[in-house]
């Protein structure tokens, strides 16, 4: 991504709806050509509003949207030529599948035979070859989503925008669909920005992930970066599972004291964490069981054991008051057992 001029730029986008705090607060983001970026966050975090500002359905109160360096903030959606996939697909109920997909071409004045043929190609590209004559009402949820995608892609948009593209699909369908989605988008080399509240969807489909909370952009980066090096406490708690424990940070390590046992762990600090009191982010996959005489281990009692297929999730009470979540492939530990927990992967993320 370095060196190439950014394809789509969000520059300090702000939107107020008359309440105390802005719904979107100076969000800036650069997306390279062909990149897939996910906007994630809790509901109310401003991610959908941000997407709608990029699409042109909302006018920002401040900030700009730039495409290849050109300021398109004042252009209405019709002129931006972005493809958009809506959360509930917004398929035209009175048109057939083929007519739906061809609608954008029809709006451009392309002749009937050509646009229907291009629509047929687009449908084949999403695995719905030959479905052009069907009625919308006869489609399943997954099929509707693919029609919506084909409709957005057939106009060859510079940017594809997707609003919760997988949220309406049931879990099994979701998994296969998100793989297909990523494959299709990569194959076409489309630049895409999509909004989702599901981290797994974001991690599976996107190249980079941007986390929004309360209208502000907290961090942008690959999924791994957000997981291993969260920029602050909010990111650490939102992404994945973790236990936050207090410690003392000295610049390149953090000393964590639990139940009288202090351990010094290599630190991967967030920016601007000061020396002194700080917080260590202990990920469940970075903790493990160790034999009773293991050094660097904390002693605790297992409170809960949950089978989750490939792993088991244990909740271990250490030092009588802190519960650590541990994911392990070890199976023969039961609630009530006394165990030793150690950090198996360093460095450990540190936030203030």
């Amino acid at each position, binding site marked *: 991504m370095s060196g190439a001029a950014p394809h789509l730029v969000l520059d300090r986008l702000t939107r107020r709806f008359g309440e105390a705090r802005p719904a979107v607060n100076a969000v800036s983001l650069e997306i390279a050509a062909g990149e897939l970026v996910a906007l994630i966050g809790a509901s109310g975090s401003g991610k959908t509003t941000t997407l709608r500002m990029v699409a*042109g359905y909302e006018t920002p109160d401040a900030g700009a949207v730039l495409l290849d360096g050109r300021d398109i903030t004042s252009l209405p959606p019709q002129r931006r030529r972005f493809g*958009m996939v809506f*959360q509930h697909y*917004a398929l035209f109920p009175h048109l057939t599948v083929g007519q739906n997909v061809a609608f954008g071409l*029809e709006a451009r004045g392309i002749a009937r035979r050509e646009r229907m043929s291009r629509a047929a190609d687009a449908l084949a590209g999403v695995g719905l070859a030959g479905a052009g004559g069907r009625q919308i009402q006869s489609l399943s949820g997954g099929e509707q989503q693919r029609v919506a995608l084909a409709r957005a892609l057939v106009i060859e948009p510079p940017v594809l925008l997707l609003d919760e593209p997988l949220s309406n699909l049931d879990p099994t369908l979701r998994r296969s669909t998100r793989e297909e989605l990523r494959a299709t988008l990569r194959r076409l080399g489309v630049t895409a920005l999509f909004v989702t509240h599901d981290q797994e969807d974001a991690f599976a489909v996107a190249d980079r992930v941007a986390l929004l909370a309360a209208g502000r952009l907290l961090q942008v980066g690959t999924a791994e970066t957000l997981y291993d090096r969260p920029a602050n406490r909010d990111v650490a708690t939102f992404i994945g599972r973790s236990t936050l424990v207090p410690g003392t940070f000295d610049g390149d390590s953090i000393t964590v004291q639990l139940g009288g046992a202090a351990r010094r762990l290599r630190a991967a600090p967030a920016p601007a964490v000061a020396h002194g009191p700080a917080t260590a982010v202990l990920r469940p996959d970075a903790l493990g069981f160790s034999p009773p005489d293991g050094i660097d281990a904390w002693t605790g009692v297992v409170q809960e054991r949950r089978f989750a297929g490939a792993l088991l999730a244990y909740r271990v009470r250490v030092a009588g008051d802190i519960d650590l979540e541990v994911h392990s492939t070890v199976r023969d530990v039961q609630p009530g057992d006394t165990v030793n927990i150690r950090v198996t992967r360093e460095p450990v993320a540190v936030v203030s």
Partner: protein
Amino acid sequence: MFAAPVLLVLLWSVVYPNLSIVVGSFEHGLRSWREFASSPTDLEALRTTLIIAVGSVIAAVAVGLPLAFLLTRVDFRGRRVLSAVATLPAALPPLVGVVAFLFLYGESGVITRGVQALLGLDHAPWTLNGVGAIIFVHAYTMYVYVFLFVSAGLERLDTSLDEAAAGLGASRWHALRRVTLPLLTPSIAGSMLLVFMSALGSFSAPYIFGGGLRVLSTQIVASKLNGAMDLAYVETTVLAVGAIAALILLRWFERRRTYAVSTKGTVVRARLHSPTARLLAPIVGAILVVILILPHAMVILVSFARDGTWTTQVLPPEYTLDNFRRLATDSDLLVPIWNSVSMTAIATALDIVVCFVAAYLLVLRRFRVRWLLAILVALPWAIPGTAIAIGLASTFDRTSLASARVLLVGTFWILPLAYFVRGVPLVSSATEGSLRQMDPSLEDAARGLGASWWLTMRRVVLPAARPGLVAGAMLAAITAVGEFVASIVLFTHANRPISMEILSQLRNFAFGTAAAFSVVLIALVLAITLAARWAEGRWSRAEAVVIQ
């Protein structure tokens, strides 16, 4: 259980009279029908009726459709005022509306005289007469149907469909043509049929403005007055069949309204950009508001005019409170008011009882002849008021237990019966609507908890039905209190309602008194509306307190 009595009541009051008309039309074989088909006046009446109906549909759509789009999709200064007034014409009793048009646009009307004076002409610039006049009046009252249907359709439209169309590059016009209008077709078509049915049975406007014009509804009354009952039966049957055909088409269209709406975004109103548009829009809006309120304002104005003084001037020259004073003191003048109020009360009470049971049966119970009940409650809506009146007049003109007839003609009771019949579709469809929103398992839950049938009705079903019951009863009462069409066929001097009094005052050129009665009618409509709102508000507040 309850199906039987309700069915019987409806069969007796709705089907029987109308069936006897149809039967009566064949009493002498096909002779009456041949008479109809060969009579130039009758054929002309048929043709004119159809022309007026079609013309009214075109006019109502021409006004109602753009207005619905304007008020739903565009934001401009004064929009709220225009929205509030947009449905006002529907609240005007038909006869009062016609009278108001007479005062405004008639040969001696204010607007007519005003334009005449302005342009320096020595005779009226137009005459409010004939097909054009009737369509003009219909456009004013019936555009509301189109406006309401299309507005509701627009509000139900998934806004993300518009956004999708825009995002795919469709211009506003392309999106309108290929997305919005096709999806609105059921609403538009439904309202067109409703206008058609109303125009078909319209009586007041042709009666007062027709001049020498004949339409089927006025022909029916004329035939009856001439004693040519057989011909009247044929004419009534033709009119009723036309209206019922339209109703069937309407129902078919309603069933086609199957496009499921998944999400309903907030309605986004476009703001006007060009400065000329921003300047023009409020002005146009203001003009429209004035045009819409003018009839009501006119009626109120004339009610204060001294009888007999308004001859050739633009506006009535002398004003007085006498008209109202006489209304309040002259016992003879109070009779029609009391008649209308009491007959409305009786009819509405009966409507509430019968239609609650009918709606309950239709929504919550399955039984063999349910389809029959559904048709019975919808039928009086299709059959024009004149036809209903003729049916009642010919059926209940004697007492004969063998043929289940009771002498009602010439008595007080025939008018409440007519009002009751006309109110059935209103109350039952509104109540059905409310009951459909109730979770059907509530009834089972109550019974399972040990509640008796009566307790369940009172505490579970009735509260659920109440909003529809109140709204429907309100509409039925408003229709009954100003009813004219059936009244003119069935009234007697003793039970003459307000509408007949207005007519007779007009015939005596006592415009002020006629207008005063019209104001009373408007006031009664307002009172009924407020009473209904207040009652519903009080009951739902009482429930809210209990729930907390």
